[in-house]
């Protein structure tokens, strides 16, 4: 194209793409038929289109009047596989860190340590999830041996500050959570999915200056 342009063949406008212009080549009766055919087409297709749109005046709109005029909370209407905010039940967390490894964008940070009071017991001193960065892919849920980390159906995570979206599941490193030891042939006693998160969210409504989910600030430099 560029060569043509530089040679100036595009100086004037190029011919528009060849159009099939039946009107110009065909005999008069055909052209007359076409002329009135266009009008007939307009009437016919407008008739159909208008009848379709009019019929929608008496059909049910599908609008869901989120958030206040729904039969129940939208979060409760979602399917069980829905991948909303992540929730961790620390009482069944084995501290295996499989979720941290599985996360492709490193939004999970788990630190473990020895319990100072009982050196034989290992504890989780930190289990942070940066929900603001999480892309809700579900890859962390899959390797979890006890189902401690789960996607809930909660999705309303508006906070005043993006920092408040770092959910610290071990709020206080001074009170770490001990490792859970799975019992063979027995399901881990996990709390129902969503319950823990809902409770925490209710405690920290979004207008709070800083969510109580988050102990004030990490050690900033």
């Amino acid at each position, binding site marked *: 194209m560029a060569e043509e342009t530089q040679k*100036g063949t595009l*100086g004037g406008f190029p011919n528009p793409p060849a159009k099939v212009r039946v009107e110009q080549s065909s005999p008069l009766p055909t052209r007359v038929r076409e002329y009135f055919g266009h009008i007939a087409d307009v009437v016919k*297709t407008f008739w159909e289109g208008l009848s*379709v749109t009019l019929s929608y005046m008496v059909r049910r709109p599908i609008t869901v009047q989120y958030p206040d005029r729904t039969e129940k909370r939208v979060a409760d209407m*979602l399917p069980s596989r829905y991948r909303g905010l992540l929730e961790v039940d620390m009482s069944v967390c084995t501290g295996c860190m499989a979720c941290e490894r599985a996360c492709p964008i490193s939004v999970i940070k788990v630190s473990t340590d020895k319990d100072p009071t009982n050196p034989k017991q290992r504890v989780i001193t930190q289990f942070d999830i940066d929900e603001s960065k999480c892309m809700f892919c*579900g*890859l962390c849920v899959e390797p979890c041996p006890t189902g401690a980390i789960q996607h809930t159906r909660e999705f309303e995570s508006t906070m005043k500050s993006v920092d408040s979206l770092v959910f610290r599941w071990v709020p206080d490193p001074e009170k770490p959570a001990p490792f859970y030891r799975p019992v063979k042939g027995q399901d881990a006693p996990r709390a129902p999915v969503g319950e823990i998160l809902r409770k925490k969210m209710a405690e920290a409504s979004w207008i709070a200056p800083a969510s109580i989910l988050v102990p004030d600030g990490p050690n900033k430099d």
Partner: protein
Amino acid sequence: MAIDMQLDRHILRRTESSDEEIVVNFGPQHPSTHGVINFVTQTNGEVIRRSVPDIGYLHRGLEKIGEQVPYPGYMPFTDRIDYLAAMFANEGYAVAIERLLGVEAPPRAKYIRAIAGELCRISNHFISVGTMAQDIGAATPLTHALRERESINDLLEELCGARLTFNYHRIGGVAFDLPEGWAVKVLRFLDHLDSYIQEWDRLITFNKIFVKRLANVGIITREKAIDYGLAGPNLRGSGVNWDIRRDMPYGAYPDFDFDIPVGTGRFGTVGDCWDRYFVRVREMVESSKIVRQALAKLPEGDIQAKVARKLKPDAGEAVGRVESARGEMLYYVVSDGSEKAYRLRVRTGSFMAMGIIEELSHGIMVADLIAIIASLDVVAPEVDR
């Protein structure tokens, strides 16, 4: 991507402009560019001399990211390549890595992939034809299309837990089996869909103004379409009977019986905007056929092949091709034996479609440019990756 003024100068340098010509930026924020794309357009009044697409506003370096995350971890990123048809982006990547590893998904997984993929194709085509009607000036079809798509989104949400970024496929299979009672819901929806498509046609497809706006506009001849490497519905709209699902079969597609709609030039010339539009409408019906067959023949068994948790394919390379809603999606993966890809390349239909717009833009009207962009069904993140 270029800074606008530079591109203005660039395009003016390349043509002899007259005093009456102006350079207009269609984008990056414009209602009809379907994402953040800029069309630097030189016009003389309503007639366009040339329109140069300027892309890259949504470039996120997804190919580079592919070199930095382990093989299974890249799957969620593929969702972001094409958010309107993420199922295919997932599937293409899974197919490519499976070929690299030499594993094969179990038959049930393949069938589920086909079901999920074809549902996703319907939802994508609804967006495509709906926004096309919107760009031509009819607002109502878009909301109807979105409503239908919403039903599919609900179904897919139930299947894989997300509405757009599915992350449903896994290397060697799929993440979940079908939920209970899901098949019945899908069949009920397909019954609705098949009858709804006729209403859609009455509402917009054959509308005289719509036909007049699209027929004989943006004609891409068969030769040109192949030369420019167009793919999918854009290629078929030009009359090329080529579909990866049938011609380079993957997954469960050899088991299904379906037609490949191609452009016929019904109201104008083969390869015009209306043909591309209508190919999409017909493809929805074909996809519905495929889903019905897949649900009827769905085999029992595993949904996930045995794959090591830490993937370390041997050094080598493989190509995974799938027929995405926007045409052939090609993943080219080079492995050096580590657990991350050495090079990961995604070739998408939208990128190729953008390449032809400058060629088509000579001597058309401003409104035609909008129609052409809409008919090529470009999605900005897929162009820029």
